[in-house]
């Protein structure tokens, strides 16, 4: 009963246009009070904010946002988008395709999809608007492309999953590669399809000029230098992803200073936008954590899975129901909170039924990707909206066409475990 009151309060507040972070905090406070009275409220309100924000891993977010902000403020990112547009622009939807490919490339550097979305939002959105891309289509492409970061290795989600299930993290990460590439191809197909159906939404550049295109590559050197630093740093093993974010941001700042592209106003804007995005994500995670503690205390999630276990369903039905539950939970809850709360239970359940844990990890990661872009709580869309300042509702509508391809890919992953297991199996022989 309590759980329904808490969820109802949350939904009503969201409909009343209460900021999402506050809505979750308020609903959690009401719920905690109903579960345990004032002492529960006092305890969680005193601790959760600090406990979420005092985190080294969280530092990854402001650092990658700052890196992207410095790039964007100095016009560097626009240079690269311009150059790729010169090459791909004659293709209808070419810049959109370039954005997906850039995101896939970034995904090989970044393990957090919100960080990836933030970077691409700052870098790609202005250029897409400049060449006349439809606003809604632009934010849709950016938000959905960001989710690639948690499927293509490295991935914070898969690492957490590996720790929760005690499965090989290395195998899990490798397992994400093919599904990630498959997903990227799906996005590209969707973009080309939209471009074909609605040419006015993604205007093509009139002509292709090899010399102009080659010349457009020249101003790209700072970006290439940064990418070399970031990719080289990560794969060469110079530092952790978090550290690379900081070094990348510092390098971006130095490069823009050398290029004399940074002034006081741009620097202030970069700091403002970075702090704004950080505060937005931190407060939403805090709200989600509070609400998650409330849900845990009501034992709602536990009862749900107990019910499944005792119903005696066919194995594939269990998987289907679980995936459905993850998709529904993914609409309302923070993705990491969902993982932490449910994976220990569901992983035990599905391995008992004889399914492969690594394959299940990929399937769960896919539902996480989807959850990141579905309303009302879609962190990637929030980030994209926050950075581009396009209204949230419009961002969600922009993502909608891609949800179809997401469901198709999810279906493929479910039907053909080989897509996920081919590479890890090759590895162990």
């Amino acid at each position, binding site marked *: 009963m309590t759980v329904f009151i808490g969820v109802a309060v949350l939904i009503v507040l969201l409909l009343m246009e209460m900021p999402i972070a506050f809505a979750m905090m308020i609903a959690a406070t009401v719920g905690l009070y109903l579960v345990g009275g004032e002492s*529960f409220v006092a305890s969680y309100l005193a601790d959760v904010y600090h406990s979420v924000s005092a985190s080294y891993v969280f530092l990854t977010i402001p650092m990658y946002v700052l890196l992207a902000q410095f790039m964007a403020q100095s016009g560097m990112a626009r240079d690269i988008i311009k150059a790729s547009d010169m090459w791909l622009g004659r293709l209808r939807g070419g810049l959109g395709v370039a954005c997906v490919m850039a995101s896939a490339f970034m995904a090989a550097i970044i393990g957090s999809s919100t960080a990836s979305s933030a970077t691409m939002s700052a870098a790609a959105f202005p250029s897409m608007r400049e060449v006349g891309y439809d606003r809604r289509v632009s934010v849709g492409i950016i938000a959905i492309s960001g989710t690639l970061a948690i499927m293509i290795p490295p991935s914070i989600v898969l690492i957490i999953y590996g720790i929760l299930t005690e499965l090989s993290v290395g195998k899990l990460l490798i397992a994400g590669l093919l599904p990630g590439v498959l997903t990227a191809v799906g996005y590209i197909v969707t973009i080309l399809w939209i471009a074909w159906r609605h040419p006015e939404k993604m205007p093509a550049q009139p002509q292709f000029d090899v010399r102009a295109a080659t010349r457009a590559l020249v101003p790209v050197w700072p970006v290439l230098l940064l990418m070399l630093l970031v990719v080289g740093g990560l794969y060469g093993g110079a530092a952790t992803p978090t550290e690379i974010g900081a070094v990348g941001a510092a390098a971006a700042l130095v490069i823009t200073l050398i290029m004399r592209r940074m002034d006081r106003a741009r620097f202030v804007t970069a700091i403002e936008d970075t702090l704004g995005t950080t505060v937005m994500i931190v407060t939403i995670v805090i709200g989600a954590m509070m609400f998650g503690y409330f849900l845990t205390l009501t034992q709602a999630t536990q009862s749900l899975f107990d019910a499944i276990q005792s119903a005696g369903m066919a194995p594939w039905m269990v998987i289907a129901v679980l995936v459905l539950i993850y998709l529904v939970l993914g609409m309302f809850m923070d993705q990491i909170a969902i993982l932490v709360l449910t994976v220990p239970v569901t992983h035990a359940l599905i391995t008992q039924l004889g399914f492969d844990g690594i394959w299940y990890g990929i399937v769960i990661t896919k539902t996480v990707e989807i959850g990141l872009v579905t309303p009302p709580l879609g962190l990637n869309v929030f980030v994209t909206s926050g950075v581009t300042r396009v209204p949230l509702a419009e961002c969600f509508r922009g993502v909608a066409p891609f949800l179809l391809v997401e469901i198709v890919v999810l279906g493929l992953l479910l039907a053909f475990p080989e897509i996920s297991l081919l590479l890890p199996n090759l590895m162990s022989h």
Partner: protein
Amino acid sequence: RTLMFADSFPLSHTLSTDGTQRWMKRVETLTDGDIDFRHFPAEQLAKAGEILQKIEDGVIQAGYIGTGYVSDELPLNGALMLPGEVRDTVNASQAYWQLLKNDTPLRQEFLDNGVVPIYAVMLPPYQLVLKRGPVSELGDLRGLKLRSTGSLNLVVQAVGANPVSMAAPDAYLAIQRGTLDGTVLPVTSIAPYKVNEVTKSLSTNGRFGSFGITVAMDKKTYDGLSESQRKAVDQAGDETTAHLAQVIEDEVQTDLAEFRDQGMAVYELPESMREALEPKYQAAQQAWVERMSARGLDGQAVIDAYESALADVDAKR
């Protein structure tokens, strides 16, 4: 009555199956179900470092307390984690548990925070888990980048290596990619983080520190139990200390055998290196004692009490 219990371990973890879960089951059995538990595993209610606070706040009645996470609330209990102190799990756990059961400053710290210690074990000592082969002298450690945390950084630095702080989940990738040259971990913590997949050698007789695993109950709840219920809780605690320490020790042996089978070099640090390490351990302990006395706490007395408790336990075995 039903008590709410929180820990941070996944349900399949040894510290859960043979620790917290086993203790709860024993209490339920011994009290004929008068006391039962609602178990919240895997940080579902609070992060590992906040469980003590949640007991103090009355959200839960009992839970897991990792002494390394609460150095602000249980500073003296950090003594057992110092390098040099813990040689093996079974004896160290018994000695620590004797100190916590009796009227000592270590027990008093728990009581001051409104909780009663119920059982306690020490993890096996931290070992060198390296991407390179075995080391044979102190100089081999110079400049190695090792993942470590908190006060462990002090000893890592003292032996000439460079401590790198990062979340445990990051260690795997960091070692695989060469960001790190290795890490210091208790043997039983290597497999859960898959570190054995990306490292080549593991020392067995290092004493780079340890970690205290304790379970505590809200004092008011504990005092409110009937005489026989308290006895049951205590008995279950004694049993769990002994059982869990032995299970961990057995797991150390199984893990070592498994790592050997996987081709890892599992080796003893040579005598000369152990002698070179000893003063480093001593220096780390001395530094800790000094920092405790700066806060008006007698750290040396705790170390001495532990040494004598350990001597008693050694004598009995």
